């Protein structure tokens, strides 16, 4: 049988075989058990939960599986934790090709191995044809954080610098192109990746205040969260904000603002201005870090996010109103 049927979710033989032949083969045997024990470890246990829906399920630079691993790992990494374990629940639409499911499971296994995390538990449900988007993945992640690492927006103060580890808007634009919507095509790749190396390097820098991954809502949304939480103004500098030319071009054409598009392999760090240059050098020295930049600073003033344009003008970057690209992450 080459496609998922409702029987693959009924708890019986088909499901057992699917778990054995796809998930346990790709992730290891422990996913067959309903519950799993984890070894004792030092530090603070950090837990995260995330759901993944994306259209299309496979796109240049990744797929829903690698996205689920990177998204979960990144949420742990930006909190200062080292990701260790993950659980995955698959909600599969009847009729989904098992080959494709296996391809996505292999992608998950590869991404997990790269990030040093183990898939320790899972679940499978099947929904009737027409009642799901092919495949949804619900994930949880568990990591360990050293007790002396304490990041948070409370530590942010006037003068602090904002950095990003590479060009913004790639994922949102790549997924849009992959849908071949509006007759557009291009060879842009999603930036979907683990930010763990960047996060670990940043944690080692004294003066690091806070990190966040700019996924849904993009860099402008992270800046707005910082501004609202701290009560300070955040000024972003268009001259240093890294945006690839194709991203800029496609956004111009369709009326999107790349500052609001999702990234899946980027991290924003807020750091003591005296250490910003140090962090920039470290980040630029990492693989895929050559596009890192200091992109703005925290200022006294009303809690708003303002973009200083190339010409020296100012543009307010407000909270997102409509969803510019539904279902991209």
């Amino acid at each position: 049988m080459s496609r998922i049927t409702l029987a693959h979710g009924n708890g019986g033989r088909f499901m057992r075989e699917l778990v054995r032949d796809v998930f346990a083969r790709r992730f290891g045997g422990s996913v067959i058990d309903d519950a799993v024990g984890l070894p004792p470890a030092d530090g603070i246990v950090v837990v995260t939960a995330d759901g993944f829906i994306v259209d299309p399920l496979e796109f240049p630079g990744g797929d829903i599986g690698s996205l689920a691993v990177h998204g979960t790992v990144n949420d742990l990494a930006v909190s200062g934790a080292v990701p260790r374990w993950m659980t995955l629940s698959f909600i599969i639409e009847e009729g989904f090709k098992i080959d494709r499911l296996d391809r996505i499971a292999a992608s998950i296994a590869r991404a997990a191995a790269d990030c040093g995390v183990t898939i320790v538990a899972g679940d499978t449900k099947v929904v009737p044809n027409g009642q799901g988007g092919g495949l949804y993945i619900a994930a949880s992640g568990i990591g360990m954080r050293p007790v002396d690492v304490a990041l948070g927006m409370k530590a942010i103060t006037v003068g602090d610098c904002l950095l990003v580890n590479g060009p913004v808007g790639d994922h949102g634009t790549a997924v849009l192109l992959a849908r071949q919507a509006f007759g557009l095509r291009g060879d842009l790749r999603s930036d979907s990746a683990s930010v763990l190396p960047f996060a670990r390097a940043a944690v080692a820098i004294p003066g690091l205040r806070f990190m966040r991954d700019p996924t849904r809502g993009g860099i402008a949304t992270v800046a707005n969260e910082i501004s609202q939480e701290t009560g300070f103004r955040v000024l972003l500098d268009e001259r240093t904000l890294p945006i690839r030319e194709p991203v800029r071009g496609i956004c111009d054409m369709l009326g999107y603002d790349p500052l609001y598009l999702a990234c899946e392999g980027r991290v924003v760090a807020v750091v003591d201005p005296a250490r910003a240059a140090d962090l920039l050098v470290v980040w630029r020295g990492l693989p895929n870090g050559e596009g890192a930049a200091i992109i703005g600073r925290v200022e006294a003033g009303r809690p708003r996010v303002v973009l200083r344009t190339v010409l020296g003008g100012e543009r307010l970057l407000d909270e997102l109103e409509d969803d510019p690209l539904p279902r991209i992450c």
Partner: protein
Amino acid sequence: MPDAAAWLERIRALTLPHPVRVLNVCGGHERTIGMAGLRGVLPDNVVLIPGPGCPVCICPEEDILSAIQLALVPGVIFVAFGDMLRVPANVAKSEIRSLVEARAQGADVRPIASPADAVAIARANPNRQVAFFVAGFETTAAPVAAMLHEGLPDNLSLLLSARRTWPAVALLLNSEAAGFEGLIAPGHVATIMGPEEWRFVVDRHGIPTAIAGFTAGSILAALYSVLRQIAEKRPFLDNCYSAFVRPAGNRRAQDCLADQFDDIDAAWRGIGTIPASGFALKPHWAGHDARLLFPNHLEGVRRRVGDMPPGCDCARVVMGRISPVECRLYGKACTPRTPVGPCMVSDEGACRIWWANGQRPDTADAARQ
């Protein structure tokens, strides 16, 4: 070619005899102005006014309502440019007010980005009627004319609501007070129709005019040209988008327009009828005219209260008579989430653009527009 910063320096170095208001007539120009924060960096005596450049904003209310009713006809696939989907018609809130709401009620409404999409959808659904809502300026009318020239699938019809740009500017200039001393003319329209269409602004009204492209640099170059013409009292028609705008424009596109469409007096939402400002299908296209094919789609009793909802000043915003923030609904009853008038809906609408770039009614220190 100087870059945007160099054009800005030149503008700052000019000595103007009096404060100057410069009108643009393209939503794309207004977007660039907002995105680059140009209003905040220009000298105080130079005011940029967004004019009648948003096709969504000027689409007559009755056409929006027709579109909604037509979309609700069982079996019809209704296609329209994405911007048109959220424009509210002026009916009670309990009724279906927009194409988005029609879709929520089960109508098959599909956003498209080009006329080719409409043809593709019609071909893919040969057993269904597909109606295409053609709202836009010459830049939309020309590719639709080309589509007609190629021939239409039998099941594709058009709800045509396309307009010419220059007649609205002529209307302003022929009114008692034009309200502007310089004009930045639309680059894409001029690419098709030729720069000469805008000569009347200079020749008949003595108003300095420059055609601009869509980068901040191109707009600043055109603005510099207009301001310098004013400073030197030497108005002429300048072309600052000469890489694309050629003398006489695109003849083939113009021939196509003339072959497929008749010029008609046409209504502009909130503004009224402007002579020879609209396109109508030639009689031989009657079999594809959605207005003729679905004559009874405007059913039911409707209490009309006017083109615009009460209190909505979109018409004056469109004509550059007031700025978006001067409308008393702006940012209060009317926001992108709950748009009252069309200017708050489209990405080319002045209100939507000003809002997106941070202009708020209650904050003097917001990023300046």
